[in-house]
C-alpha cells in the first residue's frame, strides 16, 4: 500500500517525461504540457502550505506573478541570463512572501484567507500600474531567458525537461521539508498549535519560513511561466488564478503533495477540453468544481490510492 502510493507520483512524472518521445511533440501539446507542469509546481508549493502547514493562502498566484514580472523587468533592462534572472525571481517572490507573511501569519482561519487575498490584490494593482511594462495589458517577452549565454530555453524539448525537472525537484523538496524536524513542527501546528507551544516551540517563525519557502517555489514557477508563454500580464496574479491553484490542490487531495500534481494535470486538461467545446466553458466548469468539492472529499488522489482506516 505505502509502496504503491510512492510509485504513483513517480509514474505521473515519468509519463510527462516520456510524452514528447511517445508522439506528443506537437507544438500545442508541448505548450499544454509546459503549462501543466508549471501550474503543478505552483500547486505543489501551495499544497505544502495548505496541507502541510495549514496555511490556506488565497494569494499564492501573487508569488508566481512576482517571479514572472521579475523576468520581464530584468529583460527590459538587458539582464537576460537565467543565472541572474532565476535567483532574482526567487528572491523577489520570497521577499514578497516574507513581507506579507509576516503580517498575514499573525491571523488565522478566515482572516488568513482574506488577508492573503488582500495582499494578492495589492500585487495585482501594482502590476496593473506598471505602465512601462504594459499596465493592464501586460507585456511580451521577446526572447526567452538565456542559459549561461545560450538560447537553450528556446528549444522546446529542453524547456520541457527543465519544467519537468523543476516540478520533480519542487515535489521532492517539499516532501523532504515536511518530513524533517521543521516539517514536523509545521504539521503539528496545523493540527494543534497549542500543543506545539506546550512543548516549548512558537509556531510563528516556522510558519513564516514555510510561507517564504513556498513563495520562493512560486517564484520559480513564475519564472518558467513567463518563459513558457513569453508574455506577462496582471492576469497571472489575479485572485481568480489563486483560486484555481487552490482548486488544483483540493481536486488532487489536500494532505498529499503529489495530489496537487494530479489536480493540476486534470485541471489543465479539463479547461482545455471544455474550452474547445464551447467558449462558455466556464458554465460547465463552475458546476463541475462545485460537484467535485461536494463529492470528492479526499480529492482525486484518494480515489487512486484510498487511505486505510
Amino acid at each position, binding site marked *: 500500500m505505502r509502496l504503491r502510493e510512492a510509485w504513483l507520483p513517480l509514474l505521473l512524472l515519468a509519463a510527462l517525461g516520456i510524452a514528447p518521445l511517445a508522439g506528443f511533440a506537437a507544438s500545442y501539446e508541448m505548450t499544454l504540457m509546459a503549462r501543466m507542469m508549471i501550474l503543478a509546481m505552483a500547486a505543489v508549493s501551495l499544497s505544502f502550505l*495548505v496541507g502541510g502547514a495549514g496555511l*490556506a493562502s*488565497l494569494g499564492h498566484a501573487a508569488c508566481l506573478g512576482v517571479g514572472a514580472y521579475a523576468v520581464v523587468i530584468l529583460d527590459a533592462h538587458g539582464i537576460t541570463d537565467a543565472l541572474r534572472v532565476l535567483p532574482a525571481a526567487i528572491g523577489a517572490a520570497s521577499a514578497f512572501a516574507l513581507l*506579507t507573511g509576516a*503580517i498575514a501569519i*499573525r*491571523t*488565522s*482561519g*478566515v*482572516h488568513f*484567507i*482574506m*488577508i492573503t*487575498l*488582500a*495582499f494578492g*490584490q*495589492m500585487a495585482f*494593482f*501594482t502590476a*496593473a*500600474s506598471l*505602465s512601462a511594462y504594459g499596465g493592464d495589458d501586460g507585456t511580451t517577452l521577446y526572447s526567452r531567458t538565456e542559459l549561461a549565454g545560450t538560447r537553450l530555453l528556446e528549444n522546446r524539448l529542453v524547456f520541457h525537461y527543465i519544467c519537468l525537472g523543476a516540478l520533480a525537484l519542487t515535489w521532492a523538496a517539499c516532501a523532504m521539508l515536511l518530513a524533517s524536524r521543521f516539517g514536523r513542527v509545521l504539521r503539528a501546528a496545523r493540527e494543534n498549535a497549542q500543543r506545539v507551544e506546550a512543548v516549548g516551540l512558537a509556531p510563528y517563525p516556522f510558519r513564516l519560513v514555510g510561507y517564504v519557502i513556498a513563495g520562493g517555489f512560486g517564484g520559480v514557477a513564475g519564472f518558467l511561466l513567463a518563459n513558457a508563454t513569453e508574455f506577462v500580464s496582471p492576469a497571472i496574479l489575479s*485572485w*481568480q488564478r489563486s*483560486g484555481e491553484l*487552490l*482548486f488544483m490542490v*483540493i481536486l488532487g487531495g*489536500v494532505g498529499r503533495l503529489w495530489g496537487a500534481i494530479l489536480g493540476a494535470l486534470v485541471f489543465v486538461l479539463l479547461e482545455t477540453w471544455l474550452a474547445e467545446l464551447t467558449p*462558455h*466553458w*466556464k*458554465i460547465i*466548469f*463552475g*458546476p*463541475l*468544481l*462545485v460537484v467535485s*468539492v*461536494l463529492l470528492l472529499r479526499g480529492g482525486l488522489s484518494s480515489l487512486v490510492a484510498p487511505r486505510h482506516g
Partner: protein
Amino acid sequence: MTAQLLLVQVLNGLQLGILLFLVAAGLTLVFGVMDFINLAHGVQYMLGAYLGAWLAAAAGSFWWGLLLALPAALAAGLVLEVLVFRHLYARDHLSQVLATFGVILFLNEGVKLLWGASPLQVPIPPLLAGGIEIMPGLQYPIYRIAVLAAGIATAGGLWFLVDRTRAGMLVRAGATNAAMVSALGVDIGRLFTMVFAFGAMLAGFAGVLAGPIFSVEPGMGDNVLILAFVVIVIGGIGSIRGAFLAALLVGLIDTLGKSLMPDVMRLFLDASPARQTGAALASMLVYIAMAAILAFRPAGLFPVRAG
C-alpha cells in the same frame, strides 16, 4: 482640489460605502451565523443588477424592476442555498471557498450567455433624474442622494431587525454561539436558510440600486465581493455595526484615495508618474488599511466572538 469637489467626493465615498454595506451585511451575517465563507455573494449583487435592469426594461419602469428584482433575488438565493450552500455548512472553509468560487464562474458566464458580454445601461428613473444644489453653485445628482438615503434607511431597518426582534436575537446569538442556539431548540437549518436568502436579497437590492450608477456587466460582483470582504474583516466578522462603520470607511478611503492620491503624488513626482503611482496606490489603499488594522487587531475592529 476645492472644498466643493471634496464634498462631492465625500458624498460619492459614502454612497459607495452604503452599497458596500448592503452587500457586506448579508455576507457578515452568513459568515457570523453559519461560519460560512460565501464568495458567491458578489455574484448575487451582480444578479440583482441584471434582474433589475432586465425587469425594468421589460416593465418599462425602474420601480417595477426594483419591486420584481427583490423577490427574484431572494428566490435565486434560496435556490442556491438549497442546491449548493447548505451542503457546505459543515465543511471546512477551504471547501466553501472553492465551491462558491465554482458558483461565481457559473453565474458570471451565465449572465454573459443570457444578456451578452457588453454592459447594460440602466436609465435613471425620471422621478429621481437631475440634480439639486447642495451648495451654492454645486449640483449633485438626486439619484445618488436617494441611494444614500435608501441605504441608510435599510441600515436602520436592519439594525432594528437584528437588535430588537426575536429573529434578530437568534441571529446574534447564533453568531456568538451557534451550538447554544440549536441547544435551545431553534431550527438552525431554517434560521440559516432565512438569513441566507435575506442576505442575498440585500445584495440584490444593492445591485439594483447600483445599476443606474455603474455599468451592469459580467464580473461586476467580483470587485464588490473583495471589497465587501475587506469590510467585514475590518469590521469584525459577524458584526453589523462593524460592517456599517467599516463599509463607510472603505467607501471613503477608496473614493477619496482615487481622487486625491494623484494630487498627493504630485508633491513628490512629475505629472505622468504621479498619475500612475497615484492610481496604483489608490487601488491599494483599502488593502493597506485592512492589513494595517489586522496587524494590530487580528479579529477586526468589533470582534463578535471571544477568543
